[in-house]
C-alpha cells in the first residue's frame, strides 16, 4: 500500500482530534515515500569579503543567540620549528594567549576575559593555527580590541612561559601511560619516517632550551595577515561587522610574504609487523596501514567510498561486521583513509582486541583489505555508502558558524569552493568498478605496516582455536623498543 502524502495525512488526522490511526503503517520502511529534500550548498562567494588589507573573510549573520564568533585561521605551525627547538609551535600557541597582551599583563587579561565570560583561545598545530574569540554580542567592541591585542602584541610573560614549559614536561611524562598514545606516535614514525617534521617531537632537552625570544620570533612569522583567513558568524549586522573588522584587523598591513610550503615526507618504514611491548594491559591495539595521498585526486570519491565500505562506515562496513558483529573480537574496528590537503594522509585499519585474538582479527582485516580491491562491492553496499556521503551533506553546513568555518578552512589549504558544489554529483557518479580501481591504485596490501601495541608475549601466542592466524605470517617481525618519554631515546632492557 502506498502512503498518503504528508500534507494530506496531516489534514485528515488534524480533522479528527481524537486521532485514531489515520493510515496503515507500511510493513517495511522501504515503502515509505519521502518528499524531496530542499538543500543547496551555501554560496561561498556570497559569504566572502576581502578586508582592506586583503585578508579573506567569510562572514554570516546568525541572530538566533546573542553570541559572536571571530576565528582567525592562520598558516604555519610545527613544520616551521627550527631544529633543536621542538615544542616551540605548541608553546607559542599556549603562551600567545596566556602570556598577556597589549597593556594588559597576563593575569589582567585573564580576569577581564573571564568577567566578560568571553572565550579567547590560541593554538598552533602541525601546519596551521587558530586564534578564536567567542563572546556575548553586546561586548563585541571590547572583544575585538582584546583580540587585536592578542594577535599583534602578545607579551609572552616569562612566568606563564615557565608554567607552560612545566606543564609540557608534565604531559610528556604521560607519553607511555596509555597504549593509545604509544600507538599513535609509533604509527606516525613508521609511516612518515622518523625525520619528517611531524615526528620531530619535543623532548625535555628541546623544551628546556626554548626561550621567550624564540616565541617572539616564531609569533612574528605566524602573526602576519598574509597568513590569515577569517571566519565570522553570529549576532550582528553584516555591514556593520565588516566595518568593525576593517577598522581593526583590516587596518593591519601584511609584514612580508606568507609562510613557506609544507615539506613532503620522503620514506616510510619497510612493510612488516612492528611490535611494542606494554605487558600490563590485557587488550592489544593494532593498526594496519601505509602512507596515503593528497589532493587534488581525480578518484577521491571512489577511494572514499572504498574506505567507507571496507571500514569507514561503522556498522555498515565490512570490518565492523566481521570483526565485531560476527566474531565479537573488538568493540571498535574501523578504517580511515585520510586524504591530505598539504601533505599526504594515511590509510589505516585499526581495532583493539584481547591479547589472544589480536592475530585473528588482524588476519580478518588484511583479508578484507585484499577483498576491497577485487571489485566485490555489491550494488546495495555501493548505494548505502554513496548516500552516507551525499545525504548527510547538509550537516557540513548545519549552522552559519560551521559554514563560514568550513569555507575559511578550505581557502586556508587551497581547496576550491567547487569541491562542495560538485560534491554530490561526483559521489553519485562512482561505480563499483571505480571503487575497485581506486582501491587498487591507493590501497597496497604489499606495503602494509602492521603495528601492535600490548602484551606482546601473550599476543604472539595467538588463540588455540585459530592456529592459522599468526602475526609471523603477516610480515617480517620487528620489535620496537619503547621510547623514553623525556628523551625519545630507546629504553634499554
Amino acid at each position: 500500500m502506498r502512503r498518503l502524502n504528508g500534507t494530506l495525512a496531516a489534514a485528515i488526522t488534524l480533522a479528527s482530534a481524537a486521532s485514531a490511526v489515520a493510515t496503515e503503517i507500511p510493513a517495511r520502511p522501504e515503502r515509505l515515500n519521502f518528499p524531496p529534500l530542499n538543500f543547496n550548498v551555501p554560496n561561498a562567494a556570497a559569504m566572502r569579503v576581502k578586508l582592506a588589507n586583503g585578508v579573506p573573510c567569510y562572514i554570516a549573520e546568525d541572530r538566533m543567540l546573542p553570541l559572536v564568533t571571530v576565528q582567525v585561521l592562520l598558516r604555519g605551525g610545527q613544520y616551521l620549528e627550527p631544529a633543536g627547538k621542538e615544542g616551540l609551535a605548541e608553546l607559542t600557541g599556549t603562551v600567545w594567549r596566556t602570556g598577556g597582551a597589549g597593556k594588559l599583563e597576563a593575569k589582567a587579561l585573564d580576569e577581564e576575559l573571564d568577567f566578560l565570560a568571553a572565550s579567547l583561545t590560541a593554538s598552533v598545530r602541525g601546519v596551521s593555527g587558530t586564534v578564536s574569540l567567542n563572546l556575548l554580542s553586546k561586548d563585541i567592541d571590547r572583544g575585538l580590541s582584546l583580540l587585536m591585542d592578542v594577535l599583534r602584541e602578545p607579551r609572552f610573560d616569562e612566568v606563564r612561559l615557565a608554567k607552560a614549559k612545566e606543564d609540557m614536561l608534565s604531559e610528556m611524562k604521560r607519553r607511555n601511560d596509555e597504549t593509545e598514545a604509544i600507538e599513535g606516535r609509533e604509527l606516525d614514525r613508521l609511516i612518515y619516517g622518523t625525520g619528517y617534521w611531524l615526528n620531530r617531537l619535543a623532548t625535555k632537552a628541546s623544551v628546556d632550551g626554548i626561550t621567550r625570544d624564540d616565541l617572539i620570533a616564531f609569533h612574528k612569522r605566524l602573526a602576519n595577515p598574509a597568513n590569515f583567513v577569517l571566519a565570522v558568524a553570529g549576532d550582528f549586522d553584516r555591514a556593520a561587522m565588516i566595518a568593525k573588522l576593517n577598522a581593526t584587523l583590516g587596518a593591519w598591513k601584511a609584514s612580508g610574504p606568507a609562510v613557506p610550503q609544507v615539506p613532503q615526507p620522503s620514506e616510510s618504514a619497510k612493510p612488516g609487523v612492528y611490535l611494542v611491548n606494554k605487558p600490563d594491559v590485557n587488550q592489544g591495539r593494532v593498526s594496519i596501514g601505509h602512507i596515503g595521498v593528497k589532493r587534488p585526486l581525480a578518484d577521491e570519491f571512489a577511494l572514499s567510498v572504498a574506505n567507507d565500505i571496507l571500514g569507514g562506515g561503522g556498522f555498515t562496513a565490512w570490518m565492523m561486521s566481521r570483526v565485531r558483529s560476527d566474531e565479537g573480537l573488538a568493540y571498535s574496528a574501523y578504517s580511515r583513509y585520510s586524504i591530505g590537503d598539504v601533505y599526504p594522509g594515511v590509510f589505516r585499519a585499526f581495532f583493539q582486541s584481547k591479547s589472544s585474538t589480536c592475530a585473528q582479527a588482524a588476519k580478518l582485516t588484511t583479508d578484507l583489505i585484499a577483498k576491497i580491491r577485487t571489485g566485490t562491492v555489491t550494488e546495495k553496499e555501493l548505494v548505502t555508502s554513496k548516500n552516507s556521503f551525499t545525504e548527510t551533506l547538509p550537516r557540513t553546513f548545519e549552522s552559519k558558524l560551521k559554514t563560514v568555518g568550513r569555507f575559511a578552512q578550505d581557502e586556508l589549504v587551497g581547496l576550491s569552493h567547487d569541491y562542495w558544489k560538485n560534491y554530490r554529483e561526483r559521489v553519485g557518479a562512482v561505480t563499483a568498478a571505480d571503487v575497485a580501481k581506486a582501491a587498487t591504485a591507493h590501497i597496497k596490501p604489499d606495503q602494509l605496516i602492521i603495528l601492535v601495541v600490548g602484551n606482546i608475549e601473550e599476543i604472539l601466542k595467538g588463540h588455540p582455536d585459530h592456529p592459522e592466524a599468526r602475526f609471523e605470517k603477516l610480515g617480517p617481525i620487528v620489535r620496537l623498543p619503547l621510547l623514553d618519554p623525556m628523551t625519545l631515546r630507546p629504553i634499554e632492557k
Partner: protein
Amino acid sequence: MTRRYLGTALVLLLIAGTAGAQQVRVREEVLPNGLKLLMVERHDSPTVACGWVARVGSVNEAPGITGISHLFEHMMFKGTKTIGTSDFAKDAGILAQQDAIRAEMEKEYTLLREKARRGEISGNIYDPANMTPRLKDLKAEIEKLFAAEKEVIVKDELDQIYTREGGSSLNAFTTEDQTVYFITVPSNKLELWFWMESDRLANPVFREFYSERDVVREERRLRTESTPTGKFEEAFEAMFWESSPYSHPVVGWPSDVESISRSEAESYFATYYAPNNLTAAIVGDFDSGKALELAREYFGRIPTGKTAPPEMITDETPQLAEKRLLAEADTNPEVRVRFHAVPFNHAEMFAFELIADLLNKRTGRLYKALVEDQKVAAGEPSCDFRPMKYQGYLEADAEVKDGRRPEEVEASLVAELDKLAKEPVGEHELQKVKNQELANSFRRLQSNFYLMLQLLLYDSYDTWTFLNEGPKRVQAVTAADIQRVAQKYLTKENRNVATYLRKAGSAAEDPELAALPAEVKGMIKQQLAQIIQMTDRGKLEQAVTRMRQMSAKVPEEMKPAFDYLVKKAQGHLDSLPAAPEKGNAEQKTPPTGEKPKA
C-alpha cells in the same frame, strides 16, 4: 492527553535580551500510552536531531544483573521482527534453542562456582582451562546455533537502512540514570525515524544476545582494564557510594555480565522500555503539528507497560568518616577530593554549580592558590559538580607538581574548599561566575543535536523545563547560599580522597640519568632510592654535606654521576619540611609522589 503548547509554531526562540537567560520554546505532548514528546523547531538547516530516552540505567540494577542496562543498549541495535532477519519464524526457533542450551550451560557454571568457592579450581570459572567436558559439548552445540542464526540474520540492518537514507550519528549511550538513543536525519526523512524507533520499541528481537557479550567484554577492556586509571576509578566509585547502587559500574561487574540471560533482558525491557517510561525529543527543521501526527500514529502503537517501573528507593547512607584510596598506576601523581552533594534540580544544586565555577579556570581559586601562590600543582586544577538523579557529588582534582608531595596538594585543595565555608565570596567574583553561567547557557543552545540531548537528559533526571529554569536559578544564588552549602557539605566527615602515585618502573628516566654510562647507572639508582626514602632532614643534611666534602676526591670518570647524585640529594632535602615536629618525621609517601624504583 496533556497538551502544553508554548508559543506559536513560527516563533521558535524568543531571545529575552542579554540581561536574562534564554527561553527555548519547547512544545510538549504526552501520548495516551504515556510517551512524552518534546519538540523544538529550528529551520536553519534541513536536518532534524532525533532521540529518545528510557528512564533506566545502572542505578536500577540489582546484584546479579549489573550491566544489563548497557548490554541491553547494544541489543536495541539487533533488529526487530521485521528488521535484521530474512525469516523471523526460523530465527525465533533458533533463539529458543539457544536459550535452552544456555540454560544447561548455566547449570554447569553453577557447579563451577561451587568448585571455585571450595578452591577446587583456580581463576575465573569462564577460563577455557576450567571448562568441563559437558560445557565443551554445549559450547559446540550453541556455536552451531550461532552459525545457523547467521544464515537468517540481515547484518546490522537498522544501521544499513538509516545510513542509506542519510541518517548520521546513529548511536546510544547508557549512564547510571538513563539510556539514550539518537540520530540526525535529513528533514524529509523524519517519518523514517518514527517508523524505525517505534518498530524497535514495539517489536524488538534480542538476537546475537550471547555473542554480543564478547563485544561488551572488549568494551570493558578498552575503557576500564587497559587504561592506566580505569580500574582505580571503578574502585573509587565502589568506595564512595555505600548503600546507593551508584556503587557498581555502568558496564557491570564481569561476573554478572557473563551470566545475564535473554529472559532477564526481556522482562527488563517490558518494565523499563514501556512508553510511560520514555521521553522523545526532536529538534530541527520540521513542522511540529505534522510531527505530532506521526508520533500518534507510530509511537501510539506501542502498548503501555503492564506494571509501572519500580521506584529506586535505596538511599545513600550518610557518610560517617573520611575514606581514602591510594592507587599506584601508570599516571602522573594526582589527588582527587570528593564530597557527597545533592541530586539534579535540588534547591542547593545551583550554589554547587557556582562553587565549581569559582574554583575553575585560570582566574579561579584553585589555580591561583595551588599553581600561582603555593606552586604545588601542575596543569590547571579543576572542580566538577556532578548532580545525578538520586545523588550528586563535588570533586576537586589536582596533579602534583614535580618535586611536591600529594599531601601538600591535598591540604591546599581542602584549604580552598574550607575557605568557601569560612568567608562569603566577594561581589565581583560572584558576578564573574554568574556572567560565565549566563553566556554558557546560550552556548549550550547552539547545536540542534546538543539541545535534543539536553532535553532528554534533563527530562530523565527530573524535568526538561530545567533547560529554561536552571539558568535563572543560578543567577539568583547569593554569597550566603554558597557559604551555607559549603559549610553543610564540604566537611571532613563527608570527604573522600583518591591519591594516585606513579607506579614504580613506569616513570620516565631522568634524561640526565639516562646520559650516564650504563655501568654506573644501576649504582646511582640504588643510591637514589635510599636517599629518597630518607625523611629526617638532619640526617640528610649531614649526608649531603659529607658528599660535597668528598667531591674533590671522586675520580674524573665518576664525576658526572657523583654530581648528579649530590644534586638529587640536595633537591630532595629542599623538598622536605623545614622543621619536622618530633614524632612526625616519618613520611609514608616519598617526596615526588613517585614510588622509589626497585
